[in-house]
């Protein structure tokens, strides 16, 4: 006999076999019972594992990241994009499609409260101005962190020197050629040694999805400060644009975005 409550009528439903017909049943009368509550155990097990994963996943994750780093760093196939590691870039863009400028047509405007406004091309940025290289982590405010990213570019401080930013300037505003994304830094932050107008990252020219051909890299701050697709650097005496202090700041993220001491996070400094 079957265990458990017998199936209820009408199990055969509308267009089933004709009434009054008693079809043949299997001769095998000794059916083993179907009573191991596998479903409940599996369900509870999944819930339990999921909860443990939430509580301890951060530790597993960092172990996994370390183990997978040799693969993700040297991956040329792009398949590592599927691995559940946090040490890879996730591409965020705030507009419908990725903006695009070729190397040849790229120009960086530096203007505002400066003595010598300038329009720079890639040759200026890659060759004429003093170059600086540094290797530092990239920490996103959403939690992922890419360790030891090599960056090359011009120090923002040198750029401000080049155009003669005036002493009473208070902030630098950055415009992206995606037409939406803006950021700001105080003059003091902008003059730090580890703030770059970067044209190379990861050992190659900055790609389009990473914000190329030229992007900002603000090493000590969360990733959203490192504005992509840099179009214009404007030196200002006050923050008076509707977009100020910046795109992500207007969505609630901290204006002074120090890694480890802002946005309620306690990440290790980059």
């Amino acid at each position, binding site marked *: 006999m079957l265990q458990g409550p*017998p*199936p*209820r*009528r009408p*199990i055969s*439903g*509308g*267009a*089933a*076999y*004709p009434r009054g*017909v*008693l*079809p*043949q*049943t*299997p001769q*095998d009368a000794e*059916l*083993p019972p*179907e*009573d*191991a*509550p*596998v*479903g409940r155990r*599996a*369900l509870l*097990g*999944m*819930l339990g594992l*999921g909860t443990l*994963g*939430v*509580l*301890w*996943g*951060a*530790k*597993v*994750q960092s172990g996994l990241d370390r183990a997978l780093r040799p693969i993700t760093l040297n991956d040329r196939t*792009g398949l590592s*994009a*599927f691995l*559940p590691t*946090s040490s*890879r870039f*996730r*591409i*965020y*863009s*705030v*507009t*419908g499609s*990725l903006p695009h400028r070729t190397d040849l047509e790229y120009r960086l405007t530096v203007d505002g409260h400066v003595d010598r406004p300038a329009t720079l091309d890639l040759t200026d940025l890659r060759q004429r101005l003093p170059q600086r290289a540094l290797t530092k982590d990239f920490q996103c405010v959403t*939690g992922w962190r890419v360790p030891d990213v090599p960056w090359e570019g011009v120090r923002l401080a040198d750029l401000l020197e080049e155009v003669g930013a005036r002493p009473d300037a208070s902030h630098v505003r950055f415009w992206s050629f995606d037409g939406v994304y803006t950021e700001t830094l105080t003059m003091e932050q902008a003059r730090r040694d580890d703030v770059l107008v970067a044209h190379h990252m990861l050992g190659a020219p900055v790609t*389009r*999805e990473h914000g190329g051909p030229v992007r900002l890299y603000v090493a000590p701050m969360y990733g959203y400060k490192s504005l992509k697709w840099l179009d214009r650097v404007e030196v200002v005496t006050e923050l008076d644009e509707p977009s100020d202090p910046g795109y992500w700041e207007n969505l609630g993220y901290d204006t002074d975005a120090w890694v480890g001491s802002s946005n*309620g996070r*306690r990440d290790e400094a980059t």
Partner: protein
Amino acid sequence: MTTLERDVDARVLRFDRTERWLHWSNAVLFLILLATGMTLYIGPLAALVGRRVLLKDVHVISGLLLPVPLLAAYAGSWRARLRQDVRRFARWSVDDWRWLRTLGRHGHERMGKFNAGQKLNAIFVAGCIPVMLMTGVIMRWFSPFPLAWRTGATFVHDSLALTLGAVVLGHILKALAEPVAMRSMRTGMVPAEHVRLRHPRWWREVVSADD
């Protein structure tokens, strides 16, 4: 030979309207979630599509809707057959274990309505719903939770999504390879002959319920 065996058109109800409706609403939501989730997760795809804010909203809303069809299917008297089938998924016999151990080569002789692979698929997908929902909520509304939970929730959500994607793909491929099964999820019916030959244990239930 009985009348039924000669009647080539005799059919048995495999899934009633509630079950079909539940399956297809889940399918639509899962596909939306997989598509938007993949676009949020895989860098090159994200770069291609953009519109991150919109995708995120669609993903979150579909995710919150995911348990609704299940709850609705269980909310009234129309759940009777669904409950029967859930019980079939949940309760395993030695034959099911044998089927699973041999990857379907043995254990057909007393096959019930569902084989162990189908049972496992149903249990896994059902189990994914609360886990994905819980981790998704922590990812989206992270501020009340400790920071490590957000990382942990992301880890669980990502890993489980990858597994789930593979399972759903397998499920779709199996369904495409099995027109009878596919048709039964569309129309609800399977040929009685198919039940008698391939699912003798279920056949017995059908017969004893229809005495």
